[in-house]
């Protein structure tokens, strides 16, 4: 494993390098701003691997993880990221919130705001819900996934993984395959990877292909085998069981036959192609175990590791203004 060649550009300093109050999506970020977040994340990778995690820069900061939709790994990743930097992390699950009692999202946002959170991490099942909350609170808001819209930290961790493993994102041929229509991970990745100069091919049956997808500067394929030719990175998406019930695809068996990543299929990609998956995986449906567990090809556990580093970087950067960091206040 090697660190990427890219190093932060020293020309721009302080807030000017990342002038956004919230991180609601990759849309709206400039390529150099995405690069900045990746550069910031690099320092936490090594730090996380050692036992001396002594950085307490978020000491006294209250981080609320407001998860209106169930999540295990993303919630855990944000919680660990905050705690590694010394923040006081509070988790709010929808199941134990007043959302179930009919409180509107804006009322919930106002309530969280009144509790003087310093940063709020939100996951919600409705596209756009995070922006709605961001507009109503006084602190930075981080999108941990909203509906089918965006999941920006996932795209950042994926870009970081690719950059570290392949030296650069630019020029890489990345194939994203699976349920693109309902995937916020796919949307954020399409935006981030094309912004960083990758050639992105997207693969899905027509029933799961978002309309007008070419407008995102990606090339759509329905034939997975054709898309895989010469691929540097193969990113598989999770197929949710409810999609089968919804009639988008006939069965998991048929999906596997056409879109499952098998060793035979992967042979069409470059010999050293990287395999990624945002998790949790459906082994034997979208990805075979032999690939998921492949020591050289699979970057799936590394993605999880990068996730913590990227989220530490985002929490740090977004709270710099309120922490009074020089040049950011």
């Amino acid at each position, binding site marked *: 494993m090697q660190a990427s060649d890219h190093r932060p550009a020293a020309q721009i300093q302080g807030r000017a390098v990342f002038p956004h109050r919230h991180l609601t999506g990759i849309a709206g970020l400039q390529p150099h701003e995405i690069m900045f977040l990746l550069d910031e994340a690099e320092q936490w990778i090594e730090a996380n691997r050692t036992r001396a995690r002594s950085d307490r820069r978020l000491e006294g900061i209250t981080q609320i993880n407001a998860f209106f939709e169930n999540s295990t790994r993303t919630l855990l990743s944000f919680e660990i990221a905050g705690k590694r930097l010394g923040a006081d992390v509070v988790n709010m699950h929808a199941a134990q919130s007043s959302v179930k009692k009919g409180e509107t999202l804006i009322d919930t946002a106002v309530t969280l705001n009144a509790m003087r959170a310093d940063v709020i991490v939100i996951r919600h099942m*409705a596209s*756009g819900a995070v*922006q709605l909350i961001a507009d109503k609170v006084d602190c930075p808001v981080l999108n941990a996934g909203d509906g089918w*819209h965006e999941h920006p930290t996932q795209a950042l961790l994926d870009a970081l993984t690719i950059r570290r493993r392949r030296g650069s994102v630019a020029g890489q041929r990345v194939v994203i395959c699976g349920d693109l229509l309902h995937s916020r991970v796919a*949307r954020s990745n399409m935006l981030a990877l094309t912004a960083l100069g990758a050639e992105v091919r997207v693969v899905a049956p027509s029933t799961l292909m978002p*309309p007008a997808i070419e407008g*995102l500067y990606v090339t759509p394929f329905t034939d997975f085998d054709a898309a895989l030719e010469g691929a540097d990175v193969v990113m598989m998406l999770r197929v949710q069981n409810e999609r089968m019930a919804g009639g988008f695809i006939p069965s998991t068996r048929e999906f596997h036959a056409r879109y499952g990543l098998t060793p035979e299929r992967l042979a069409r990609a470059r010999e050293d192609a990287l395999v990624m998956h945002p998790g949790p995986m459906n082994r034997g449906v979208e990805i075979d175990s032999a690939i998921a567990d492949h020591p050289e090809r699979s970057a799936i556990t590394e993605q999880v590791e990068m996730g913590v580093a990227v989220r530490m970087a985002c929490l740090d950067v977004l709270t710099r203004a309120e922490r009074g960091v020089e040049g950011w206040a």
Partner: protein
Amino acid sequence: MTRLFENVKVLGGATSFAFSGETITTDTTNSETIDGGGLHLAPGIIDLGVFAVDRAACRAGGITRVGLMPDQSPILDDPGIIRRAALMGKPDLWVHPLAAATRGLQGTDLAEMAINASAGAKAVATGRRWIADAGVMRKVLAYAKDCGLTVIAHAEDGNLARDAVATEGLTATLLGLAAAPAIAEALAIARDTMLAEDTGAAIHFRQVTTAAGLDLIRQAKRRGVRVTCGVTPAHWLLSDIDISDYRTYARLSPPLRSDSDRQAVRAALADGTIDVIASGHDPRGPEGKRLPFIDADEGMSGAETLLALSLGLVREGLIGMERLFELLAANPARVLGLDAGTLAPGKPADFILFAPDTPWVIDATKMKARAGNTPFDTLPVQGKVHRVFKGGREIEA
């Protein structure tokens, strides 16, 4: 006593206008003269297909009669409810109930059209949604024809549009919103115009908003089908780009379309394919709109902006002023079978005085309507209604 407006620009070219009691007249003997101040004088607007009786918004918009959609609580499918609805706005605003075409708007059993018509219903309507079952729709059309009632239909295939909150396209894809293809509209129009042709019934599509849908209307009219259609200003002024940033005020039914469909609506207004301009008035408070886009209510508050936005068509030269008031008054009256909507002698003295060029800015926070959910907030427009007369009686603002 006869009253005579002078110094007015009457629609059609006259400079004076007389009415006696509740009726328009040409006999000006012994009349009291009123100075119209150079204002334009036109028929009161007949707003076909509103979802709420909103007197203040209608007064501000120059609307003297509304066709009230059956989607009320309770649903307008019973003579007692219809009789009550017909009296809701009187005397300032005449409400013409559109009775539910099927019981409870369920789309399964025929409603009592004849009894409801005798209680005051002027047409039957499918409501906010289409009737999914073609067999039921055929019976609705056949039976409505027997009763001499037009069927007012919602042109959207409800199966194709089931969970959709937007029209398919790059905007919906970027926002991650469930979207339906624009042909959901044409599919419904194709089916329902064929059924109308087969049964000989009169059908009015409340809103037609796509190029494909308007083409089908054109073809059906050419074949002699008794079909008419309407549109609201949103679909010739806005497109799906306007829902960017999840603007719930722009969440409408049918959803905003692509820009090429928007252009097709403008072309159809110019060539006469579209017969009616309506407001689609549907006031929704913040509890229905300050929500994530997919959870927000559909609809816009449109009554008081209808005339100003429509006058834009005249200013651009797309249609003339007389044609505009056919779209806003005469044609909706015809669809509802009302003896109103023009300034002909003997007709009810429902008219407005307005200044077509007065500039103002639409302000969602200062709307007269029950709610300010307008997608046109902060838009500068021209055209202000000064005076409104219903049945010869002036309506105070």
